[in-house]
Each structure stands twice: as C-alpha cells, then as structure tokens.
C-alpha cells in the first residue's frame, strides 16, 4: 500500500471520471466539457513543459482532447484510471510534435492515430486527490540529486534516450543509466514511504 499517495484520483473522483467517460461514449458534450475543465490545466502544463511554446502547446492539447472525444470508447476504465492514460497520450503527442519539429522523426500525416494503452494501477495503489498527489511527486523529485533529476527530465520531457542524454550532458552512458534508474527507484521508494 506504499503508493497510495499517488493514485490518479480520490475515491469520489475515480467513479466520477468513469461516469463522465461513460457519458462521453454516448457523445455527451456536457461530460466532455467537465472532463476538459477538470484536467486541461494538468495536460496543458505537461505539453507546455515539453514544447515550451504556448500556441503549439494549445494545438497539441486540442488534438489530445479531440482524440478523447472521438475515441473515448478505446479507453477501458475497468483496467486503469483515466488521468495517467490522458497524460500518457498528451506526452506522446507532444514528443511526436517535438521530434517532427526537430526532424529527428517525421510522423506521416496519414498515419492512424494511436492511443496509449491503459496505465494499470499497481495493486498497492490507493486513491489520493490530485492536488496532494502532485505536491508529493514534486517534493520527491526535488529531493533527487540534480543529475538524477536532470537525466529523468531529459528523458521524460524531451524524449531523449540514454545515449542522447549522455551526449547532451557529456557524461558516460553507464553513469546516465544509473542516474535514471536510481532516481526513479528513489521516487518509487519515496512514494511507498508516503503510503
């Protein structure tokens, strides 16, 4: 039960998201608007952190929520909570945009849109409201070494691989691997301890 501190939503919110999603599958515009009002700040903040440009970030957020509107039936609420799935979709879309911009990887325009698989909550997971969860994760990240934090952020927000991070930081590959792994394990242990 050590990860109870970062469940996707509280006991009241999980069924509410699920209820809204159920209505969304029936093309309920009101349900869509409530989901947008509830989660758009988190999604937009994530995308803006990755792309660093407001107008482009709004385009990506628009794509993400339109995908949600059009493909809500692809989300299986019984397998996992909604917010991690939504954030994964937003991150993937933003990183695609970033890679397209940098011409490292061009995504064909006619390529079918792929939605992420559901992020399954661990057995030990407990509900926690979003605000407390965000505070806890930020606090734990702040407790990592600067190198660990930097390496994880380069991977998560810029989509860089071990080798690319090593090249960017001008550090040995093995060192970068250790920073990332140890940082994430420390984050995990911190969340367990919170629970």
């Amino acid at each position, binding site marked *: 039960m050590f990860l109870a501190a970062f469940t996707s939503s509280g006991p009241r919110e999980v069924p509410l998201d699920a209820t809204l999603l159920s209505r969304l599958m029936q093309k309920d515009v009101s349900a869509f608007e409530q989901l947008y009002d509830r989660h758009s700040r988190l999604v937009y903040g994530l995308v803006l952190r990755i792309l660093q440009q407001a107008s482009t970030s709004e385009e990506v957020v628009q794509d993400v929520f339109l995908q949600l509107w059009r493909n809500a039936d692809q989300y299986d609420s019984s397998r996992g909570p909604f917010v991690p799935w939504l*954030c994964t979709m937003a991150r993937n879309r933003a990183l695609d945009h970033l890679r397209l911009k940098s011409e490292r990887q061009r995504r064909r325009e006619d390529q079918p849109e792929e939605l992420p698989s559901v992020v399954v909550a661990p057995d030990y997971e407990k509900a926690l409201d979003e605000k407390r969860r965000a505070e806890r994760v930020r606090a734990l990240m702040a407790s990592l070494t600067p190198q660990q934090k930097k390496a994880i952020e380069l991977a998560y927000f810029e989509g860089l691989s071990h080798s690319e991070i090593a090249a960017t930081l001008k550090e040995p590959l093995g060192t970068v691997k250790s920073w990332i792994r140890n940082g994430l394990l420390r984050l995990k242990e911190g*969340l367990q301890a919170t629970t």
Partner: protein
Amino acid sequence: MKNCDQFRELIEAYALGALDPEDRAALEAHLAAGCPDCAKAVEEARWLVCQLAYTAPEATPSDMLKGRLMQTVRAEAQSERKPRMLPTKNAIPSWLWVGVAALLVFSVYSAWTTRRLQNEIREANERAATLGIEHGRVLEQLADAKREAMIMMDPTSRKIALWGEHAHPETLEAKWHSQLGVCIVGDKVPMPSANHVLQVWFIPKKEGAKPMPSAMVRPDANGKLMLYVSAPPESMDDTKAIAITEEPAGGSGWPTMPILWSGKVT
C-alpha cells in the same frame, strides 16, 4: 543472453522511453517470450513514470482553446446524432420512400403510356392499311374511269346498243375497245331484286357454245349504271351478242333468268 535480473534493470528506463534501440529490442523480445514478473514490473514502472506529469507546472490554456474545442465537439455531436436516430425511427429514410413511390408511379405511367402508344400505333397501322386498301381501290376506280372514258371516246370502240326486253324498255349502250375492254352505261335502269345483281353475258357465235359469264353490277340509287368489263372475249368477231340478266348476288355460271337487255355485236 541476459537473465531476468538484468532485464529488470532496464524496465524503468523502458517505461520512460529512454532505452536505446538495442536494449529496447532485447527487453521487448523478453517480454514477448512471456515473463510474467517482468511484465508486471513494466506496468508498475509505467505507472511510476506517469506520475512525472505532476512535476510539470500546471498552466491554464486560453479560453479560445476551449471555445474552439467545444465548437468542434458540438458540431460533431450534432452530425453524429442524426444518422444514429434515423435507423431507430425508420430503417429506410423518407426520401428513399418518396423515391420508390415516384419510381412506382413512373413505372405505372410508363406501362400505361407504352400500352396506349402501342394501341395507337396498332390503330394507326390499321388505318394506314385501310387507307392503303382504299387508296388502291380509288386508284383502281380512277384507272377504270380513265379506261371507261377512253373506251367511250375512242372512235375505234365498237358501239353496241342493248335493247330492253319485256318490262325493261330502257336502252343501254356498250362500247367495246379491242385493247381496253368493254364499257356499258345506262340511265333509269330499274333496280334488280334484293340479293340480285345484273350480270353481263357474252354470247359466242359458235353454235352450241355456252354463254360466257362476265361482270356484275347494280345501278346506283338514281338508276345510273356504269360497268366496265376488263376481260371480254379475246375476239369481238367471235362474239355474237352481249346480254344482261338478273342473277342471284355473286353471279351464276349459266343464265338462270330471262334476258333483260341484249344487243348484237356487229
């Protein structure tokens, strides 16, 4: 060949998307082989990585973004609602029923029109055939009239007076043209009995030869008689006389009634 513990060291980086291609391919092959412990570890690592989204500072998108989204969503909801409602109310859209009805009406009208046109064509053909026959008859009559006129006016035609017998004192006149035939005319000719006609006979000179039956005619309502005989005997010189009797309609092969008019061919 890596063992399971070695793969476990890659799992967090894999969930983060930070593995280089070779490591990622090796781990995915291991997962595809069906290692349940590593698969569970990947799910937990993905969950952990998802929490990193909270490290990004929250930001508020513009109201314009929400406005654009809601406008698009409302438009799509409206367009999706229409086709969803139609099948529940009526499997076939109303415009299709109208089309089918129009097609049926058109088909019936076409069949009726076709039948009417066929009838009209048939009647027109019948009228044309009748007119053709009539035309032929008129042409024939015209030709006969021309021949009759030529026979009557040609000075080479031999004139034969047909004297009446008994109750028929009126005199008829025949003219015989060696090429065109014989023409017989008369006025105030008594009408033969019902179902009877006046029949012309050519009486040969040869002893014992029987009379040659020829054309039949009934005078008109005014008693005017005009008869053209297109095929008289070949030689006038072999004919003794021309006679007319009253015979049953359709004529006779042998005179059955007394001679009403007769005249010698001279």
